[in-house]
C-alpha cells in the first residue's frame, strides 16, 4: 500500500467517519437525556437526503405527509392530555405548533417543489420538513412511556424504525436517488483528488461539533440539557422540564440526521433504507463511548470510518463484517473496565 492509496483511504475514512461522528453524538445525546437507544436515528439521514433529492428533482417529497400526520397526531394527543387544563394560550399554542406549522410547511413544499428553487432553499426546506419529525415522534411515542425501562424504550424505538422504513418505501419508492453537489469543484491534495463536496461534509461536521461543544459548554440551555442527562431528578427540581429536554434532544438528533443525509446525498446513492446501516455505524461509535462521552464517540466514529475504508480496500466482501465485529472486543473491554454497570 503506497502513500497515494493511504491518502485515498484516509480521505474516504474521514468523510464517512465525519457522518458517523455526528450520528454517534446524536445517539449519545438522546440516550443521556432520555435513556432511549434510538435505533431510528439513521432513518433521519435517509429522510433528509431523499427529501432533498426529491426537491432538487422538482418532485414533491412524500415525507411531507408523514410530517403533517405526525403534527396532527401529536396535536390531538396534546388536546386529550391537557383536556382538563386547557387555556386559551395553550389551545393557540397547540393549534399553531401542531396543526398550522406542519400543514403550512406541507403547502410550501407542494408549491415550491415544481419550481426551480435555489440549492440553499431546497436544503433549508428539506431540513424544516424532516427536523420537526424528531420532537413529534418523541411526544407521540416516547413521552407517554418516559419512565419505562431502557429495554421497553429500545423496543419502542425499533418499532419506530420499522415504521419509518415502511413509510420510506411508500414515500420514496425502492429506487435510489443522488442529489447534485453544492460545489462541483475538485482540488488536488498531492496525488489525491479531493471534491469540494467532501470538504463541505468535513467542514460542516467540524462546525456542528464545535457548535455542540459551545452549546453544551457555554449556554444555560445546553447546560440544562446536560443537567437532565447527569441527574434527571435534580434537573426537574430546578425546574428543567424532562419533557422539554426530551423534545430538544430529539430536535437536535433529527437535525443531525437530516443534515447528514443532505450532505452525503451528492456523494452516495441513498435508498429508503440506507439510513439503517449508516446509523448502525454511528451506533457502534456510541457503544465505544459507552453512550456517555461525546469526545470518545467522535474518536470512535472516525476510527470506524477509517477501518471501513481500509477493509473495503483489502477485503471488500468483509467490509461490514469487520466493522461490526469491532463491537465485540469493545464490549469485552468495556465490561472488564466497568463490570458492575446496572440499569438505574
Amino acid at each position, binding site marked *: 500500500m503506497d502513500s497515494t492509496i493511504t491518502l485515498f483511504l484516509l480521505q474516504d475514512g474521514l468523510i464517512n467517519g465525519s457522518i458517523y461522528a455526528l450520528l454517534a453524538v446524536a445517539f449519545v445525546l438522546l440516550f443521556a437525556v432520555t435513556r432511549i437507544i434510538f435505533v431510528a436515528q439513521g432513518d433521519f439521514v435517509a429522510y433528509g437526503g431523499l427529501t432533498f433529492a426529491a426537491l432538487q428533482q422538482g418532485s414533491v417529497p412524500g415525507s411531507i405527509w408523514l410530517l403533517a400526520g405526525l403534527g396532527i397526531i401529536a396535536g390531538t394527543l396534546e388536546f386529550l392530555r391537557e383536556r*382538563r*387544563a386547557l387555556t386559551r394560550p395553550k389551545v393557540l399554542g397547540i393549534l399553531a405548533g401542531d396543526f398550522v406549522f406542519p400543514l403550512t410547511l406541507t403547502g410550501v413544499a407542494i408549491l415550491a417543489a415544481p419550481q426551480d428553487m435555489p440549492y440553499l432553499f431546497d436544503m433549508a426546506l428539506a431540513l424544516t420538513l424532516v427536523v420537526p419529525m424528531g420532537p413529534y415522534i418523541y411526544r407521540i411515542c416516547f413521552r407517554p412511556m418516559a419512565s419505562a425501562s431502557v429495554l421497553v424504550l429500545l423496543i419502542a424505538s425499533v418499532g419506530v424504525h420499522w415504521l419509518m422504513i415502511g413509510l420510506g418505501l411508500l414515500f420514496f419508492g425502492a429506487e435510489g436517488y443522488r442529489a447534485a453537489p453544492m460545489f462541483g469543484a475538485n482540488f488536488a491534495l498531492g496525488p489525491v483528488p479531493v471534491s469540494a463536496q467532501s470538504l463541505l461534509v468535513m467542514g460542516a461536521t467540524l462546525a456542528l461539533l464545535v457548535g455542540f461543544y459551545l452549546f453544551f459548554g457555554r449556554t*444555560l440551555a445546553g*447546560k*440544562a440539557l*446536560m*443537567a437532565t442527562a*447527569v*441527574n434527571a*431528578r*435534580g*434537573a*426537574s*427540581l*430546578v*425546574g*428543567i*422540564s424532562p419533557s422539554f429536554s426530551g423534545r430538544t434532544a430529539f430536535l437536535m438528533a433529527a437535525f443531525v440526521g437530516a443534515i447528514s443525509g443532505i450532505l452525503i446525498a451528492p456523494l452516495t446513492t441513498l435508498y429508503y433504507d440506507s439510513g439503517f446501516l449508516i446509523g448502525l455505524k454511528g451506533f457502534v461509535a456510541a457503544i465505544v463511548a459507552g453512550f456517555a462521552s461525546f469526545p470518545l464517540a467522535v474518536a470512535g466514529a472516525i476510527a470506524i470510518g477509517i477501518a471501513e475504508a481500509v477493509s473495503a480496500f483489502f477485503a471488500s466482501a468483509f467490509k461490514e463484517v469487520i466493522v461490526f465485529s469491532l463491537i465485540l472486543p469493545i464490549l469485552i473491554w468495556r465490561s472488564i473496565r466497568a463490570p458492575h454497570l446496572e440499569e438505574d
Partner: protein
Amino acid sequence: MSVLLTATDLSVSYGKVVAVHNIAIELPGSGIVTLIGANGAGKSTTLLSLMGVLPAKGKLMFDGIDITKSPVEERVEMGISLVSEKRDLFSSMSVEDNLRLGCYRRNRSHGGEALEEVFGRFPRLKERRRQLAATLSGGERQMLAMGRALMARPRLLMLDEPSLGLAPLIVRDIFRIVTDLRDSGIAILLVEQNARAALEVASAGYVMELGEITTHGPASELINDRRLIESYLGIG
C-alpha cells in the same frame, strides 16, 4: 399569620402500597415547620409529592392557587424549592454551573446577584466554584444543594434531612444557616431525623407515623410531649 401552603387529604402510593395516607398540612408564610417521624414514616415521600416529583391525590393550594395538577417546573416558578435527601446534584458539572442552573426557571434575570448572595452565605462554595460537584465533601455537597435551591429565591424551601451523614460541627453550621434563612423571611419545611434539633428551631411541627400525621402543634409543646420524648427525642 398568612397561610402559604395547604395540603388537604394528601395521599401518595407506590403502586398498591400507600405511603402517605390522607394527611393535612398547613404552612405559614414564614418560619420553620418541621416534619418528624421514624424511618419509613413517609416524610420524604410527602416532600416529594408537595414538590410534584411524585403524583399525589388530594388538594394542594399554594398562595391561594390550586397547584394539585401543576408539574414540578410550575411549582419551582411559583417559588417552591426542595433540597432532597439525596442532594441530586449535577456531579460532573462545576459548582458554579450547579448554582447557575438553580435559577433556570425562576429569578434568572437576577442570577448574578443571587450567585453573590449564595457565595456570601457559603464562602466555601466560592472557593470551590470551578471544582466539579463530585469532588466536594459531604458538608460542601449539602451547602451546594441548599445554595442551588436558594438561587431561585424561593418563597418556600423544603429541606429533607439536611444533616444526614454530616459531622457534628458541620451539622451545627447547617442549622445556623437554616435559622439565618428563617430570619430572612423564607418559609421552611424541615424534615429531620434529629427531631430535638429540628423542634428547637421550628415554630410548629407535625409528627408522622406509618404514612399518617398523628400529632401536630406548636414546637414548644411537642418538645415537651412525653410520648414524643420517648419515641423520637430520647429520654433526658
